[in-house]
């Protein structure tokens, strides 16, 4: 039992002594997941909003498929991205596999359905009203989407935070396409997984604590913002 307690003690030490290896890993994690979240949000949120207010045939089936895609397993995304980026694959010439770029691509694709689905649902239930107002004010299609985004910005921010949480906490996709290379593609989750199999618990626990802290900070920031609003 002692090793658990020892692990925690050493983990705290590693954190407060600003162990460089740990913080490099944390920053890479933040960089990859933030970039992926921003990219995915920029594409998915406007799309999701516009699909939500649109009337079209098969919208119910479309919703169901969208909601299914929201829970796509990260290993599946990882596998698909790895196949396409592999040297023998269609984008092999770019030599992207096992790089940070590949990790961003994989996480972007992982988060896109989630971000799309959340905005789609949001705009389906609350976008109509705002759209009506926008049209009465003489807005065109583009302008009304922008208005909806502005009006629902708090909820959309929560969507973005959810997407970010999903990206930074997943291990399957980044492990497959990144390969957990030291100093290059090693992020928080892949390190935890590796440290566990090597039996090096302090570092794994330290990173686990940091991961939880990041989620806590992100969500409390969003929460306090939505309160102010």
């Amino acid at each position: 039992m002692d090793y658990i307690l020892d692990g925690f003690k050493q983990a705290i030490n590693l954190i407060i002594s600003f162990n460089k290896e740990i913080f490099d890993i944390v920053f890479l994690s933040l960089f990859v997941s933030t970039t992926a979240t921003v990219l995915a949000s920029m594409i998915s949120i406007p799309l999701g909003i516009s699909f939500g207010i649109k009337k079209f045939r098969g919208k119910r089936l479309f919703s169901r498929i969208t909601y299914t895609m929201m829970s796509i397993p990260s290993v599946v995304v990882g596998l698909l991205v790895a196949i396409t980026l592999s040297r023998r694959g269609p984008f092999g010439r770019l030599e992207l596999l096992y790089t940070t770029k590949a990790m961003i691509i994989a996480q972007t694709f992982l988060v896109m359905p989630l971000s799309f689905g959340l905005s789609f649902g949001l705009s389906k239930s609350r976008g109509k009203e705002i759209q009506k107002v926008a049209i009465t004010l003489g807005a065109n299609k583009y302008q009304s989407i922008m208005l909806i985004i502005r009006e629902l910005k708090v909820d959309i921010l929560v969507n973005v935070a959810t997407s970010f949480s999903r990206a930074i906490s997943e291990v399957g996709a980044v492990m497959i396409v990144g390969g957990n290379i030291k100093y290059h593609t090693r992020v928080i989750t892949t390190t935890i997984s590796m440290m566990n199999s090597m039996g090096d618990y302090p570092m794994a626990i330290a990173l686990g604590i940091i991961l939880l802290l990041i989620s806590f900070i992100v969500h409390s920031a969003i929460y306090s913002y939505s309160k102010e609003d």
Partner: protein
Amino acid sequence: MKKVLSMMMAFLLVFSMIGCTPKTDTSGDKPEDKPGTETPSKEKPEAKGSIILSTTTSTEDSGLLTFLLPKFTEDTGIEVKTVAVGTGQALQMGKDGEADVLLVHAKESELEFVEEGSGTEREDVMYNDFILVGPKDDPLKLKENSPSDIKSGLKKISDEKAKFVSRGDDSGTHKKELKIWEATNIKPSGDWYIEAGAGMGDVLKMANEKQAYTITDRATYLSMKDDLDLEIVIEKDEDLLNQYGVIPVNPEVLGENSDKINNEGAKEFMNWIISEKGQNLIKEYGVEEYGEPLFIPNAK
């Protein structure tokens, strides 16, 4: 469509392969890990009935034991219970009297083990080997210049800063790699030295993608060869060999309970595995599937 399908199949194969790579050789493991785990079969010792074989994961994962042991049981009527652990832990099991016979690969520690009286004797059984694989066009021309000199090969790689993927996961293979680097007096570091922190299968795929050099055990390479654009560049260097030895545990390690160790059965196992029949079987294993044996028998 066909190409996509075959690619999918290839990935399926590769992923199933990852599960087969030799697991980490925990020779560095703390010996305290094992106390108290008395093996149940030790309760009722039989004269010949069964023996406990403590061995490394590589012999188990490669399927060699699954191939050999039934034949041994057929010949002698002795049943073998295998415990596959890291070499360090296997030796500790011997010291604690929890195994009757060991089949491990750490010659120095093995000789020490016999010297201190924990084992009665030690015989060479077989070896498997590691190889340096690299891109098919071999940009450093290692194959031409030093086909069986791993040290000068590694030196060249580090001089030219050619990409090299290291397991970086503290496994037996990783330790072996570091030992060779140490022998060359080079401390590998820099952008060209990629520390993967992954299993053998993953590392081979990574080396393939990056067209880098890496050190692998032959068995894993052979099993994945068809999906890799990598070729053997350096092999058959003394430094790349991995010698396995068999040691019957000395019953005296248990003091007055010495009758709980099946020394007779252990000796029979040793004699069988170094006999002509045992050695031939080892040589046979893997030939059908990979075109060459995975372990090369070398008992005297």
